């Protein structure tokens, strides 16, 4: 099976369902073509690749470590390895993508970047990259998210970025993307759109994947070096899908490695408050790509819900749609409550407070532990991408666990 998109940006076989593409206003096509060419040329240029590598190493603190979480493993009943993207500069895997795209922006001679953000992690990463490269930066963020991620808004401001709250529609990530696209249509001659996830029109799904694929490339080598073997399964949370595809890519050709993506199940997939796009969505076109979309009978986008702003998106990257349909990867929903339980458990057992997004992956790994052990034997290993750290989520955690409210400080774990 080929996991690459064709020249038009479609994943999948020519005779089956094709995912992705570029369903976009004509006004943006020239810019997307220009980006596609510039990105391919850059990736074929050893100097660009070496520069990207050096920035990741010297500035962003990569490669991130692969850590055997022994106490968590005891609870889980399988060996759990954590890819510590939470230790990266700015606190999440997102820094890889933005440094790649910002380096490309410099190479293309553009002077301004725009970005959308949900949790604020991509916005912070974009503001950081803009500061690093001396670019002008504007970040669009749903008004609901500016409230639940106030700390990240402050960080972006401090880094010199302009943050514009978006009130239209559901005032969350999808609407921030809409507003960023509207900005881009008017500013495309001097502005690059640093898209925050492996979704959107071609070439973004492929380009963002390539900038994030270090997660899996590093983890695969680390697993061989440190443990002398590959993991039996890899797991990541899936919002738009950048951290997940960044992890999965290195393992797709390893037929013995099972691949799991965990979507935000919100209040539960039997309610209408969730963001389990692959599980509950249907094929459609959103933000330039054919993919699974949470939509009503008329093709109107349905508002998603998740306790984690970064997973609160009614679409998903098209390569994930293809991996799901082809059966190479399995996608399962994890509820808010399961994720928060896992967040508490990881905090208590390992001294690591994960981002709520990443807590979905931890919860998912705990859920599949028995299944993986049954299939692969007693020393089964699950490699989990810990995509980010939880500092930004403390407000939500305080509310959820009533932290500091009473003298009974016990958190379920």
């Amino acid at each position, binding site marked *: 099976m080929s996991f690459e998109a064709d020249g038009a940006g479609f994943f999948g076989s020519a005779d089956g369902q094709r995912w992705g593409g570029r*369903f976009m206003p004509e006004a943006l096509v*020239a810019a997307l073509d220009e980006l596609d060419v510039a990105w391919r040329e850059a990736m074929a240029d050893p100097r660009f690749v070496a520069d990207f590598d050096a920035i990741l190493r010297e500035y962003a603190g990569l490669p991130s470590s692969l850590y055997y979480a022994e106490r968590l493993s005891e609870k889980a009943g399988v060996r759990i390895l954590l890819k510590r993207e939470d230790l990266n500069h700015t606190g999440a895997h997102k820094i890889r993508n933005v440094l790649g795209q910002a380096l490309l922006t410099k190479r293309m001679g553009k002077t301004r970047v725009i970005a959308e953000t949900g949790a604020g992690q991509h916005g912070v990463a974009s503001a950081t990259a803009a500061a690093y490269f001396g670019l002008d930066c504007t970040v669009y963020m749903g008004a609901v998210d500016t409230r639940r991620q106030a700390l990240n808004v402050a960080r972006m401001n401090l880094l010199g970025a302009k943050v514009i709250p978006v009130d*239209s529609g559901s005032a969350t990530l999808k*609407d921030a993307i809409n507003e960023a696209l509207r900005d881009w249509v008017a500013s495309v001659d001097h502005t690059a759109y640093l898209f925050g996830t492996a979704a959107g029109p071609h070439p973004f799904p492929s380009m963002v994947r390539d900038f994030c694929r270090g997660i899996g490339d590093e983890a695969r080598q680390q697993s061989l070096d440190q443990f002398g073997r590959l993991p039996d399964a890899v797991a990541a949370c899936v919002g738009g899908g950048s951290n997940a595809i960044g992890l999965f890519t290195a393992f797709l050709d390893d037929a013995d490695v099972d691949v799991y993506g965990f979507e935000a199940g919100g209040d539960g997939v039997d309610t209408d408050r969730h963001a389990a796009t692959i599980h509950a969505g249907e094929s459609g*076109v959103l933000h330039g790509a054919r993919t699974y979309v949470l939509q009503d009978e008329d*093709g*109107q986008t349905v508002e998603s819900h998740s306790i984690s702003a970064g997973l609160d998106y009614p679409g998903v990257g098209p390569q994930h749609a293809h991996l799901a349909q082809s059966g190479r990867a399995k996608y399962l929903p994890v509820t808010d409550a399961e994720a928060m339980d896992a967040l508490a458990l990881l905090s208590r057992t390992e001294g690591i407070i994960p981002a709520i997004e990443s807590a979905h992956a931890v919860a998912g790994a705990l859920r599949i532990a028995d299944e993986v052990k049954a299939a692969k034997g007693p020393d089964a290993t699950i490699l989990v991408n810990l995509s980010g750290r939880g500092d930004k989520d403390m407000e939500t955690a305080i509310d959820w666990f009533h932290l500091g409210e009473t003298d009974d400080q016990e958190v379920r774990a």
Partner: protein
Amino acid sequence: MSVARAFETARAEGRAALIGYLPAGFPDIDGSISAMRTMVESGCDVIEVGLPYTDPVMDGPTIQTAAQQALEGGVRTRDVFRVVEAVAGTGAPTVVMTYWNPVERYGVERFAADLASAGGAGLITPDITPDFGQEWVAAADAHDLDKIFLVAPSSTDERIAMTTAECRGFVYATAVMGVTGARKATSDLAGPLVARARRTTDLPVAVGLGVSNGDQAAEIATIADGVIVGSAFVRTLLDHASDPAAGLAALSELPRDLAGGVRRG
């Protein structure tokens, strides 16, 4: 009925055609029908019926507000066909302007069939290009519907040629790099774009985005075969939200001003 006839009539009268846009279901379904009929009576040659969509990336705040209001009012895709039928009944060629996903969801072939049987002339598709819209091209051809794709100032000559070759009815040239919404000055990007489009096609070329008054319409009419106005109509209704009768009265004034413009140009 194709929009071609409306352009021929306008050309015979030595003027540009006036194309007016409103979303179906805004302020409500019957209200949108009355408003569009008023626009026809006051001088619009072609009506563009918007299909409200949750994620209108090519629209500015004015049309976003109207579309959101229509959706909150419960407008459905099938209601859009009802509006088309009522407006086409006036004799004015009526096209639907829609983002792609509602069409795909409704079923592309079924959408074309229902649009044709409602008397609609065709479709304007702002977020797909012919290279990704072949399913629509086939359905439109089967039902003899106009296919109106957009060209932009950023389009290469090759893409303009590819796009206009796939259009039927007219070619939609966006006057500015940007989204819908009234603008104070007309853009100097429109003229060169229309000229580039004309080099590739004999179809009428209409210019939209940012035209809101008679003077701007007059300027565009000197360079194009049609003038497309949307946000200014929507704005007029939004400004009279509490008094629908006054809204319709104000709405009837706007085409008169614009129609004066297309005749001066």
